[in-house]
C-alpha cells in the first residue's frame, strides 16, 4: 500500500518555444537550485528510473490523472511526449516542472522532474533522438504508450529500442484480439506490461483459489472490458493447457464479475486499485512476465 500521498510542497516550472535539449537540461538545473531553501541543504535528486509517456492529445487528461501522485512514489524523470506531426511547424516546445516533496522529519525535499515536450511536425518522426539525451544514465527506462501503438511504425520501433519495459493498456485498443498478435512481435525486444492484465490480478487470484474444480471449466463469461475478457480467457487456456475454453464478454467499463460455466464466481476481496496504483505497480517490475506473455499468445493465436 502506498504512503499517504501529498501535494508537492514546491512546484517550479519553466517553458520555452522551439527549444534545444541543452536548454531543457539548463532549465532543470536552474529549477533545482531555485527550489532549495536559502542557506539550507540542497534538495535530493533521487531517481529510480526514466519514465517516458507517449501521449497523443486525446490521452492527455488521462495521462495527467495517472501521473498525479506517481512522482512521489517513484522519484523519476518523466518525459511526456506529445506528438503533433500535423501542426504545420517543425519544432519542440517544452515545459519543465520540478515537483518537490518534503521528506518527513527533515529539512530536505525530494524532487521529481517532469519534462513535457510537444514534438511538432517533423520533430515527431524521430522521437528516440530527442529522448535519448534526456535519459538518466544507468537507470531503467519505462515507456507508457497511450492508445494503440502504431504497429510497425518507425516511432514505435525507435522507442522500443530505448526501452526496458513497454507499458500499454489494451483496454484502450479496438478490434481485439487482433492487436495482441502485433504486441507479441515485441516480446523478444522488450519486456511488456499491460495495465488491462494488471487489473485482472485480483480475479486471477480468486480463480486460482478455485483449483482443482476450475480445471474442467468449458465456458467463461467476463463482465468487463473486451481486453480483460481476452486476457482472462488466454490465461486460463495457457495455464490449463486447454485451447477449447470458450469465452464471451458482457461489456462493462470495469471488471465486475466472471461466470464459469454459467455460474458466477465469488467476488474477490479488497478494492480495485486506482489508475495511479496500477501504473505504479507496473513501474516496480523489471523482467518479462512469462505467464502474461503466454496468456496473450494463447488469445492471439
Amino acid at each position, binding site marked *: 500500500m502506498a504512503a499517504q500521498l501529498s501535494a508537492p510542497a514546491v512546484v517550479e516550472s519553466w517553458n520555452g518555444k522551439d527549444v534545444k535539449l541543452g536548454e531543457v537540461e539548463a532549465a532543470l538545473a536552474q529549477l533545482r537550485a531555485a527550489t532549495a531553501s536559502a542557506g539550507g541543504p540542497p534538495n*535530493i535528486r*533521487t531517481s529510480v528510473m526514466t519514465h517516458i509517456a507517449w501521449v497523443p492529445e486525446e490521452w492527455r487528461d488521462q495521462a495527467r490523472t495517472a501521473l498525479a501522485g506517481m512522482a512521489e*512514489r517513484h*522519484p523519476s524523470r518523466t518525459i511526456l511526449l506529445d506528438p503533433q506531426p500535423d501542426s504545420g511547424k517543425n519544432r519542440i516546445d517544452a515545459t519543465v516542472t520540478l515537483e518537490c516533496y518534503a521528506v518527513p522529519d*527533515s529539512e530536505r525535499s525530494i524532487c521529481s522532474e517532469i519534462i513535457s515536450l510537444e514534438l511538432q511536425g517533423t520533430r515527431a518522426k524521430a522521437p528516440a533522438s530527442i529522448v535519448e539525451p534526456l535519459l538518466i544514465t544507468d537507470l531503467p527506462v519505462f515507456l507508457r504508450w497511450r492508445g494503440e501503438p502504431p504497429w510497425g511504425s518507425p516511432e514505435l520501433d525507435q522507442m522500443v529500442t530505448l526501452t526496458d519495459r513497454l507499458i500499454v493498456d489494451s483496454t484502450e485498443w479496438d478490434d481485439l484480439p487482433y492487436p495482441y498478435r502485433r504486441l507479441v512481435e515485441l516480446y523478444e525486444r522488450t519486456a511488456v506490461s499491460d495495465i488491462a492484465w494488471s487489473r485482472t*490480478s485480483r480475479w486471477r487470484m480468486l480463480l486460482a483459489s478455485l483449483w482443482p474444480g476450475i480445471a474442467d471449466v468449458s465456458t467463461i463469461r467476463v463482465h468487463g472490458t473486451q481486453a480483460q475478457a481476452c486476457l482472462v480467457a488466454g490465461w486460463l487456456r495457457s495455464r490449463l493447457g486447454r485451447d477449447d475454453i470458450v469465452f464471451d464478454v458482457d461489456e462493462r467499463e470495469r471488471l465486475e464479475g466472471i461466470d464459469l460455466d454459467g455460474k458466477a464466481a465469488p467476488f474477490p476481496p479488497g478494492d480495485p486499485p486506482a489508475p495511479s496504483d496500477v501504473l505504479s505497480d507496473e513501474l516496480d517490475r523489471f523482467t518479462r512476465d512469462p*505467464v502474461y506473455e503466454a496468456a496473450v499468445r494463447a488469445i492471439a493465436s
Partner: protein
Amino acid sequence: MTATEHQQQTNPLEEGLLLRRTPDPCALVIFGASGDLTHKKLMPALYALMLRRLLPARFAIVGVARTDGDDDAFRSDMKDAVQKHARDVFRKDVWDELAQNMHYVATDFADDGGENKLQDLLTKLDKERDLGENRVYYLAVPPAAFPTIVDELGKRRSASGWTRLIVEKPFGHDLESARELNTMLREHFEENEIFRIDHYLGKETVQNMNALRFANGIFEPIWNRQFIDHVQITVAESIGIEGRSGYYESAGAIRDIFQNHLLQLLALTAMEPPVDFTAESVRNEKVKVLKALHTPGPKSVVRGQYGRGYVEGEEVVAYREEQGVAPDSMTETFVAAKLYVDNWRWADTPFYVRMGKRLARRETTIAIQFKRAPHPPFGEVASEGLRPNVLLVHVQPDEGVSLAIGAKVPGQGMTIRTVHMDFLYGGAFRTSLPEAYERLILDTLLGDGTLFTRADEVEEQWLLVDSIVAAWQRDRPSFPNYAAGTWGPPSAEDLLQRDGRSWRRN
C-alpha cells in the same frame, strides 16, 4: 482428467500470482492482551495486515489476560489502541472485519481453569471457522508466566494442524536461565515452532543490510579487514526508562539492548554470505559470528549511568531519581565496548559498539569506516577537511545509507572536503515502511523463522554477556558518570582514543 488427478497436480493457475504469500487459516492467541505491547504494537500491526489483506480469510484473534472483561470490552479497548497507535488512517470497515474475529478470555491461566476456557473457545472457533486447528500463541507476558502457559499449551496441543509459539524478549536473564527456558520450550515444541522475537530484525533497514551487502557487487570485495579500519554500531535512545523501572533495574543496558539488538546488528554486519535466505542458512551464519566474538577484557568495556541533564532543552532527572529505581542503583544505562570477531575476514578489526538511555539523540546506525587512502597526493592543508570514507547505515531514524567521500571544493586550487552521498529510504521508495511487528507476525503465520532468533544464537549472546557481567562484579564504578543528553561517560571516548580513533561525529 479426474478431479483426484487434478488434486495431485500443482495448481498451474498459481504460477506468477505468488506475489503475496497467504497464511493458512489459524487462531492467534495473545497472552498479555491487556498489556502495553498488545496496545501499542500487536493490535496496530494486525490492523495494518488486515488493511493490506495479508491475514488469512479464516482467522481469529483471542486475547488472554487477567483483567476482567468480555469480547465487546476487548474489541472496544483494542479499537482505541488502533486509533491511537496505528500508522494507517482508521477505516471502520476494516476494523469491523477485524473486530468480528476477536475474542477474549479473562484468566490468570494458573489456577482458575483458564486453560480449559481457552481450549473450549478455540475448539468452538475451529468448528465455526474451519481454522484447521492451526494455532499461533503469542507470549506477551513476563517470563515468570512462561512455564505455566507453555506447559498447559504443550499438554493440549492438537495432533492435527500446526502450532507456533512467539516468545518476546527478555529471553532469559543469563545463559543458565536462557538454557532452562529453551529446555522448557523444547519439552513441548520443536525448534522450528518457536519464534523468539527480536523486533530489530523486523525493521526494513536492518533487512536492507543484507540487500546492501549481498545485492551489490561493489561492497562485498572490500567488506573485510583489508579495507575496513573499524566498525561503529550505535543504538542510542534519548528517552529514559519510561516507567519500566521494575524490568530495567534487573536488566540494565546490557540485557535490554546489547544482548539482543546490538549483537544481532553486529552479526548481520559481520556474517558471511549465506547460500540462500532460508531461516537455517541465515541463522547458521549469524551463529558463526557470535561464536567468533572474542570476550572483551575489562578495559574494553565501559558502563555508565545517567545523571541529571537536558534532553531537547528539557531538564530530566537522573536515573537514580526515576520512579521505582533504587537511590543507590548500580544498574548501567549505557554500555560501550570494543569487540573483535576472531575469524579470517575480521581479525584485528575492532567493532566499537555503544548503546544507552538518555543520550543526545535517538539514533541507530552502523558505520563502516574504511582505511584512509594510502597516499593522498594533496597538500596537508588542501586535504585537512578530508576524513576517511564511511559507509553509514541509518537504521533509525532517517532510514537509508550514506557514503562519505572526498570531493574537490569548486574554485581555484585543489581543496578536498568530505561530502555525503545519501540514499534516503523514503526518497527512492515512497511507500511507508511497515512496522517491524507487522512483518514478524506475518512471518510467524507463514512459518518463516528467518527473522527470529534461534536457540543457539540466544545462548551464544548470553555467553558473551555473562562473561562481561562477571567482570563487573569485581568493581564498583562511580555512578552517575554521564549527564543526560550527552553521548555517555568520558571513558567511552577514551575507549577509542586509546586506539587513535574517535566516535563518529554525530
